């Protein structure tokens, strides 16, 4: 790499004229082995692993907007595995491990940055749940510790230890906590997939799913009809809408989730800091901006508008945590629409329609799972619908037998 960089520096013209990242758009073929609906991180990762590990390359990713323009572009990029259930921790742990190797694998920097995540406890009940999360996480090989107020002060000297008159009693210190550049993750997977022959069709909206005798056989799009061997749905906020095209009703409700970012300041905050009691998490980006995120909007909506209510409540909490931030100016504010399940775990695997696979219910926490979702969904497809063990607990029919995987306490304001 350094040599090519040097050569590039000495050249007069752009040396990579023929080495574009993504191939130019082509016409849709009549038939694909696999159609993936949704060109977000999950969709392109699935295509990448299908091509790389399973040699399945007659694959089309159909994206109604542009690559990674959905929640992949809107999330606050928290990567962690300190969940509560063993099903959850096992799954997310493997995702964090995959994340660590992605820059090398892509030969493209996804700016993975392992900074640790600190979650604050303001009540005894939260301290107890942190103990459990520490144990479960450690058991599955993650790095998580329970730390006391003195250690918290040393880790984050700028933190107010008594925010909103709720003294901080302890912290869940998740050493594996990290962030990465979310766009780069989508681009890296898309480039790797298309180089292996996968077709990425942007501005291609699926308008209907063709189901014959209980079997998915194709899709209708704004660019014509396509038949296929099987379909993977990975459309995040639109999960219920697209599933309904295949006649599937889902245990999902769609809520907006808002986030915001300030002007950049000098680096002062290394770990990601989160408090579910204050419904707020704060982190500083590599460019120095402060990112704030919190809980979802209070009622369901398919709309990415911003609200004054959320700005007020979220910023009030952020300023309680770091009082000097009251002087910063907000630079940008945005929202995504998120597909929430009632147990805060995803819906992955089979659906009531044959050859129609679901990757949904990713709500406010699915960026961190992008690699492992791609890998397990690719296995599911390549093995003709044999569900990998890792995702078996996330089957949609868990709701029918009341076997939820409850991650609410480990998700609420942390994502």
């Amino acid at each position, binding site marked *: 790499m350094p040599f090519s960089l040097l050569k590039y520096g000495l050249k007069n013209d752009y040396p990579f004229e023929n080495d574009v990242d993504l191939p130019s758009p082509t016409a849709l073929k009549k038939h694909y082995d696999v159609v993936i609906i949704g060109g977000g991180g999950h969709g392109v990762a699935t295509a990448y692993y299908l091509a790389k590990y399973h040699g399945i390359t007659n694959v089309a990713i159909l994206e109604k907007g542009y690559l990674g323009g959905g929640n992949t572009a809107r999330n606050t990029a928290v990567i962690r595995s300190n969940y509560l259930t063993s099903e959850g921790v096992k799954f997310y742990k493997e995702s964090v491990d995959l994340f660590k190797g992605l820059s090398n694998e892509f030969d493209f920097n996804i700016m993975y940055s392992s900074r640790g995540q600190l979650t604050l406890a303001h009540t005894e009940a939260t301290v107890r749940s942190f103990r459990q999360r520490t144990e479960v996480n450690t058991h599955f090989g993650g790095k998580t510790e329970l730390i006391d107020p003195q250690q918290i002060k040393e880790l984050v000297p700028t933190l107010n230890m008594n925010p909103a008159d709720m003294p901080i009693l302890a912290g869940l210190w998740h050493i594996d906590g990290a962030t990465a550049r979310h766009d780069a993750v989508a681009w890296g997977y898309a480039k790797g997939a298309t180089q292996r022959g996968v077709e990425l069709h942007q501005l291609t909206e699926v308008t209907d799913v063709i189901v014959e005798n209980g079997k998915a056989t194709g899709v209708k799009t704004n660019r014509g009809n396509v038949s296929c061997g099987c379909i993977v749905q990975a459309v995040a906020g639109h999960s219920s809408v697209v599933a309904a095209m295949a006649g599937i*009703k889902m245990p999902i409700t769609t809520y907006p989730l808002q986030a915001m970012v300030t002007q950049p300041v000098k680096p002062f905050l290394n770990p990601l800091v989160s408090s579910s009691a204050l419904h707020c998490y704060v982190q500083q980006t590599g460019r120095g901006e402060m990112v704030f995120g919190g809980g979802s909007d209070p009622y369901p909506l398919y*709309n990415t508008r911003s609200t004054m209510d959320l700005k007020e409540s979220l910023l009030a909490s952020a300023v309680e945590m770091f009082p000097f931030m009251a002087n910063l100016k907000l630079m940008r504010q945005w929202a995504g629409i998120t597909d929430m399940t009632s147990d805060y775990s995803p819906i992955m695997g089979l659906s009531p329609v044959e050859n129609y696979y679901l990757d949904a219910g990713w709500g406010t926490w699915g960026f961190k799972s992008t690699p492992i979702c791609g890998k397990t969904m690719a296995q599911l497809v390549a093995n003709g619908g044999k569900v990998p063990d890792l995702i078996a607990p996330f089957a949609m029919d868990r709701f*029918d037998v*009341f076997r939820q995987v409850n991650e609410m306490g480990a998700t609420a304001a942390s994502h």
Partner: protein
Amino acid sequence: MKIMHCPLNGPRNISEFVYGGEVKPMPNPHTCSDKEWAEYVFYSDNTIRIITEWWYHAPSGYWFIAERHTASDEILKTYDPSERFDQRIEFDSKPELTQEPSI
């Protein structure tokens, strides 16, 4: 601040209200199957259109019904539940015990 029209209290800030889910018929919990109960509790259409839903005005403890568009967020109508439910719904609160209690 978004304003919602409460049938009891008039126009109020949306932050005074709590969303209560789509209005849908409740199956009889004693006779329906697990699947039917799960459908009622967890599943929903969750589509983009005007939906009829429960809302609660927290300061006055009042439940009512609203018709709202799930993409534009426009609230078209709010009304007292008595407009829809004209008789009391009885649920058998004491199901037949299959076994005598042991005390």
